[in-house]
């Protein structure tokens, strides 16, 4: 019934809250419930409940994604290396992340004797919560967005800049030279790569004139000649390349994984962590992997948009666009994993040189050229 109605109806919502309200309305239970709360004079409670439901769905989705990503990472790496990867727990080892989680929960939670106990305990949470917060302004599909912030892009960059603080706290509180060095490296890397990241994202903003992620996606949903999608990757190839490299550095993936660099610094800033605290870092890392890939998709690969999407019945669009968004995001994630299999790690000074001496000038140049071309009306 619901799907049939959505099939034929012409619906388009600003965010997921409205979608939920529409669905509840359609089933016919929104009004009665709302009336009950209204008679009690606490109509905001329903809104809070709906928001909580949204958050719960988002959390479940994020955690499931993270679990799937750990499995996928191991599987992709294994296949490249002529291995099977996890095969025992569940079909093709699909339940392996669950077992890993159980193992990590069961582990002894060690706090080193000379560590700063409070900060040591606090750091995993400080890194984990922003990793989830980034999901809020991500457009997962048409009208599938928690909140369409007017400053979505700025919010994303600002939130992702929190993680260096947590890394530094963790590295410092561990009272371990390796942790401190790893933290210092990670912070230096994060800070220096946020700049080209933001600069090349800014070139996109010049096109759209809006920081809202929804606006950015809808700006890319048009096509040339009816079939070539107007994605920003075609308008901004250099920007895309810079953004991709910078985002791989932001994720801390292998050519730039100085947060861990296990062969040099044992495990970088989480050398001393074990059990659930370690798991938090681990989960945050994969949450980062997903969210940063999603941002790449949103900015450059048209987000959930795809040619001929408008030919579909509009009721199906949220679902299909969600699928398209996932496929694109996983393509980026797959590329990151593929790259991880192929290349060794660069050295920390080479990384810094690459960031400051090549990427930032190129990003500025890209921004400048984009500005000129836009003013001249080329695009």
């Amino acid at each position, binding site marked *: 019934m619901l799907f049939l109605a959505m099939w034929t109806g012409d619906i388009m919502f600003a965010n997921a809250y409205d979608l939920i309200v529409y669905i509840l309305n359609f089933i016919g239970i929104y009004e009665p419930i709302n009336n009950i709360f209204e008679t009690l004079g606490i109509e905001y409670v329903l809104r809070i409940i709906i928001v909580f439901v949204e958050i719960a769905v988002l959390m479940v989705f994020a955690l499931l994604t993270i679990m799937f990503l750990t499995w996928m990472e191991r599987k992709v*790496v294994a296949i490249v*290396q002529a291995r099977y990867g996890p095969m025992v727990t569940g079909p093709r080892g699909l339940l392996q992340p669950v077992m890993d989680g159980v193992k990590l929960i069961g582990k002894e939670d060690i706090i080193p004797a000379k560590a700063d106990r409070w900060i040591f305990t606090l750091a995993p949470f400080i890194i984990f919560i922003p990793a989830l917060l980034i999901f809020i302004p991500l457009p997962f599909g048409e009208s599938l967005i928690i909140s369409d912030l007017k400053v979505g892009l700025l919010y994303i960059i600002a939130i992702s800049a929190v993680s260096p603080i947590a890394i530094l706290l963790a590295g410092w509180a561990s009272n371990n030279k390796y942790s401190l060095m790893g933290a210092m490296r990670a912070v230096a890397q994060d800070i220096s790569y946020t700049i080209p990241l933001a600069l090349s994202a800014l070139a996109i903003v010049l096109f759209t004139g809006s920081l809202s992620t929804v606006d950015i996606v809808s700006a890319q949903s048009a096509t040339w000649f009816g079939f070539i999608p107007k994605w920003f990757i075609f308008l901004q190839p250099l920007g895309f390349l810079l953004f991709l490299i910078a985002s791989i550095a932001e994720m801390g993936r*292998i050519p730039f994984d100085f947060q861990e660099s296990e062969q040099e610094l044992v495990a970088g800033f989480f050398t001393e962590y074990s059990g659930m605290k370690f798991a938090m870092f681990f989960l945050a890392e994969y949450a980062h992997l997903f969210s940063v890939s999603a941002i790449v998709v949103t900015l450059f690969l048209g987000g959930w948009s795809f040619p001929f999407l408008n030919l579909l019945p509009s009721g199906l669009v949220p679902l299909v666009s969600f699928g398209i968004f996932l496929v694109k995001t996983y393509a980026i994630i797959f590329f990151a994993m593929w790259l991880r299999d*192929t290349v*060794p*790690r660069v050295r920390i000074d080479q990384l810094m040189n690459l960031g400051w001496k090549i990427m930032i000038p190129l990003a500025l140049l890209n921004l400048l050229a984009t500005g000129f071309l836009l003013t001249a009306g080329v695009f």
Partner: protein
Amino acid sequence: MRTEELLINMGPVHPSTHGVLRFKLTMDGEIIRKCDIVMGYLHRGTEKLGEMKTYLQFVPYTDRLDYISAFPNNYAYVKAVEELAGVEVPLRAEYIRVLTLELNRIVNHLVMLGSLLLDLGGSTMIMWGFRERENALQLFEMLCGARMTFNYIRPGGVREDLPEGFIPKLNEFIKDMENRIVDYEELISGNEIFIMRMKNIGVISAKDAINYGMTGPSLRGHGVNYDIRKIEPYSVYPDLDFRACVRNECDSFARYMVRIDEMRESLHILRQVVDAMPEGKPTSQAKYGIAPMTGAPTAVSTYFPRIFTPPPGEVYSRIEAPKGELGFYVVSDGTIKPYRIKIRSPSFCNLTAIPKMVEGLMIPDLIAAFGTIDVVLGDVDR
């Protein structure tokens, strides 16, 4: 601004010290100012053990020195004993020995490449290296029943003849390996990040390298055209056509490229050995137990006695092991046990150059340089 030097303790339990080596690094930020090496965590007193065992009983212990490539250890010791006793070895045995030595050189370099790339952060190469190594280990298992600790080369020959089906399987391996080396080169040698990490890293001049006692592939990366197989030929190497692989750049990349070249060269030697393998007895299948209990060997070409007494004397015999010059100094006093065994292990002497090499570099460079020196801690600590 007041700065302090940071003392970092790397190892003995560290992912990239290839075992239980310990670096005491005095750091200035990320720059290494001084590097002290502490070793001995794997010291098993092999030289002392050698004084307690008969000549034959010590052969299994040599397997445990450089456990990645145990055939050269076997062979170096056996060669010293044979020189001491003046034992003649049948030609087929020599060919089988060369076959195992070169096969083991490939295995060693595969492990070296894998661990080097793993240290640099590329996890794929070690799995690919181990995939091919597994095929070689299958050959070893077929040949002598063990995968890493062979105890195969004995004074006077080898333990058993080649099993049936060995040569076809070896040919298959050679053919397979050729394609796989192309894969490795495509994955690693041209990789810009790898080149960035390796070029001009760990540079030490050829003169210094010799002075610090570096030998083997590590030295040949410094433009020193030197290969004990060439300059002090042993076994059947004079009959075989091969070249010493030399690179002139003196850096980590040159040392890495020497390994790749050597694998190709070893395949070339293997092909010749397979073609030229003579008929005859390597040693007999006869049981050692029925041999004379004491006295010099009588009919070495068929078997070697369990207990035997070389004439008193001393010998220093060295071979070109995959890691460098492996020498055994054996002193006999005419009893059934050696009076003194001294092992000149290539890893130990190559490691001497590391502190000089890494001064002023960073920890990642230390790891890259250390990886190309290719040490095995069983060999360093003995």
